[in-house]
């Protein structure tokens, strides 16, 4: 009974705490399953066979290691820091999400759970999980907000083609938060037979730690690649932050390297007004949403606020608890890019480097575009390009007025 709502002694965090953040705020029905998951994950982590199987799939199925690409033309145009892109967009299924889905899929198999559920925002986690379920022969149900189904329709079609059942969620704002509520209700009901593959570094312990561990490979590769190419560490690492899985994966191995700036970019949306953005650190305050204590966008009554971003994957009212700790300790900095800056970054990267980034990842590119010109030429920026933008073509065609053959 050591941990409390807000632990009075953050220097002695209990399991699943990041400073004061994290914890387990779930209905009692889930507690046995969370404990079982925690124990099984700890055993799998120490099991060389499990790790070897995961490494093999990451390499031969997903396409790791991903390239660390020097964006020469973008660097020259901006005239400042040297910009590298960590190419998670080149992974199978098009985003970093497959790292975690493979890890958790293997874990589910190991635990003998045949039925898999997942939530998805932009659809990348849903596609990755549907893919892993097809690969491992598991049944897959994906919850997705109806608003997200509309704006990321291509991913809905991909999931269905892969054999997953996609269930639309019509409650609340019909986005990621509502999909997580519905996935948790399913899990509460079917907990004895079902494994919940949570897609971000969110939720109750052990999810934030486990999801981070499955994405650590990003920063591990990044560090080795930089040392090989440049013989030194970067000035800064930039990643977009929705729930925060790609960002924590890109930051993690650099946390002890105090001279490396870690920059998380939240969705600035349409404006700074509550409901028009997803800037948890600028507009939110500590609270509990969906199993974890972290920063939450909420009103004065503690009701969760609606959010907006042009990118479905960043459109979420809370943020992973480890980011909340990194924010409070000052180890990481959190800034934002608005919808327009993200759209501009999509166009710029596409036309300068021939790389079409996901709208989510474009928020990180936008921050690089903003700060690189004022930096020295010997400084190095690494942008974690968490996903590719093919899924966004419908939104991009509309927002950028790109015409197709039927126009």
């Amino acid at each position: 009974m050591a941990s409390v709502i807000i632990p009075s002694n953050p220097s002695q965090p209990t399991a699943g705490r990041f400073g004061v953040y994290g914890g387990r705020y779930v209905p009692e029905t889930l507690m046995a399953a969370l404990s079982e998951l925690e124990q099984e994950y700890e055993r799998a982590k120490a099991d060389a066979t499990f790790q070897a199987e995961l490494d093999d799939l990451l390499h031969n199925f997903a396409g790791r290691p991903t390239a660390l690409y020097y964006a020469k033309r973008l660097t020259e145009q901006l005239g400042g820091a040297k910009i590298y892109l960590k190419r998670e967009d080149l992974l199978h299924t098009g985003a970093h999400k497959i790292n975690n889905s493979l890890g958790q899929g293997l874990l589910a198999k190991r635990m003998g759970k045949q039925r898999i559920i997942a939530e998805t925002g932009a659809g990348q986690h849903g596609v990755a999980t549907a893919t892993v379920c097809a690969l491992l022969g598991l049944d897959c149900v994906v919850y997705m907000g109806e608003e997200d189904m509309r704006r990321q329709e291509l991913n809905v079609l991909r999931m269905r083609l892969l054999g997953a059942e996609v269930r639309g969620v019509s409650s609340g704002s019909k986005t990621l938060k509502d999909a997580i509520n519905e996935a948790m209700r399913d899990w509460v009901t079917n907990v004895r037979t079902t494994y919940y593959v949570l897609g971000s570094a969110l939720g109750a312990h052990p999810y934030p730690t486990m999801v981070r561990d499955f994405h650590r490979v990003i920063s591990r590769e990044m560090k080795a690649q930089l040392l090989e190419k440049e013989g030194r560490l970067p000035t800064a690492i930039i990643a977009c932050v929705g729930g925060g899985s790609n960002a924590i994966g890109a930051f993690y191995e650099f946390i002890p390297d105090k001279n490396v700036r870690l920059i998380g970019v939240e969705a600035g949306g349409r404006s700074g007004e509550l409901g028009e953005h997803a800037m948890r650190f600028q507009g939110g305050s500590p609270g509990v949403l969906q199993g974890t204590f972290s920063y939450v966008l909420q009103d004065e009554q503690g009701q969760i606020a609606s959010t907006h971003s042009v990118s479905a994957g960043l459109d979420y009212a809370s943020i992973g608890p480890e980011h909340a700790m990194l924010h409070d300790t000052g180890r990481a900095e959190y800034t934002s890019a608005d919808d327009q800056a993200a759209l501009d970054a999509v166009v710029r990267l596409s036309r300068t480097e021939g790389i079409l980034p996901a709208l989510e990842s474009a928020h990180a590119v936008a921050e690089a575009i903003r700060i690189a010109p004022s930096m020295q030429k010997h400084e190095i920026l690494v942008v974690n390009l968490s996903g590719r933008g093919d899924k966004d073509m419908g939104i991009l065609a509309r927002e950028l007025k790109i015409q197709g053959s039927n126009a």
Partner: protein
Amino acid sequence: MAIHFKTKPGLVVYLTAGDPSIAATRDIAIAAIDAGADGIELGIPFSDPLADGPVIQRAMDRAVHHGVSLANVLALAAEIRDARPDAGIILFGYINPILRFGLSKFVDAAAAAGADGVLVTDLIVEEAAEYLAEMKRANLAPVFLAAPTSPDARLKAIAENSRGFIYAISRVGITGAQQSMSSDAASLVARIRQFTKLPVAVGFGISNAEHVRAVGEFADAAVIGSAIVELIEHSTPDAAAGGVARFIQGLRRTVVAPTR
């Protein structure tokens, strides 16, 4: 901490506070008590009730849309307490609105309003040290949920930290109607009784006299939630109190017969 179950089984009625209005919830609560409910669970509206099924989700949505605040709910509890001094009143909610209000301030206000206890759906015993200390200070009963999936070690901790009664979840799942009582409920209650002399109430999916009678075979009280919230949803605001009263009288007549 005066939660007395006058009959076996006792009846606890869940109401989402402020659905359809604070005044209507007050009238419904009083009518329910007069019709034979031993206690009222007043649901604190929350935008993201992830342990609740569609009926209570809709009620929560309506109350949140009406702008029902935690302060309104506390004032409502005080009104019910003034009107019916002997009824049990439990505040039932999710942790975030309580944290936002301020845990210490909430506990003081709940005690001042005359509530007997509090149940926080998404607060498990391991995370509850500070909450438990505050509840003890204010002499309020912390009521914890026990689930069919809870192993004995967890049930022991739940029993040791609960006051007033223990709320046993009838089956694995969210709130809402079900066809028949699952066999989970009786075995859960039996496991809980190994660790406590406190009364055990069974809830989730209890919607008719048959369910209440079944609960009475092995538990001390039945909690009726979604069935009543749905009845209110389908009533006009004026007719809701009368409808709920008739529903509870019907349960009392068929279930708490003089001889069994």
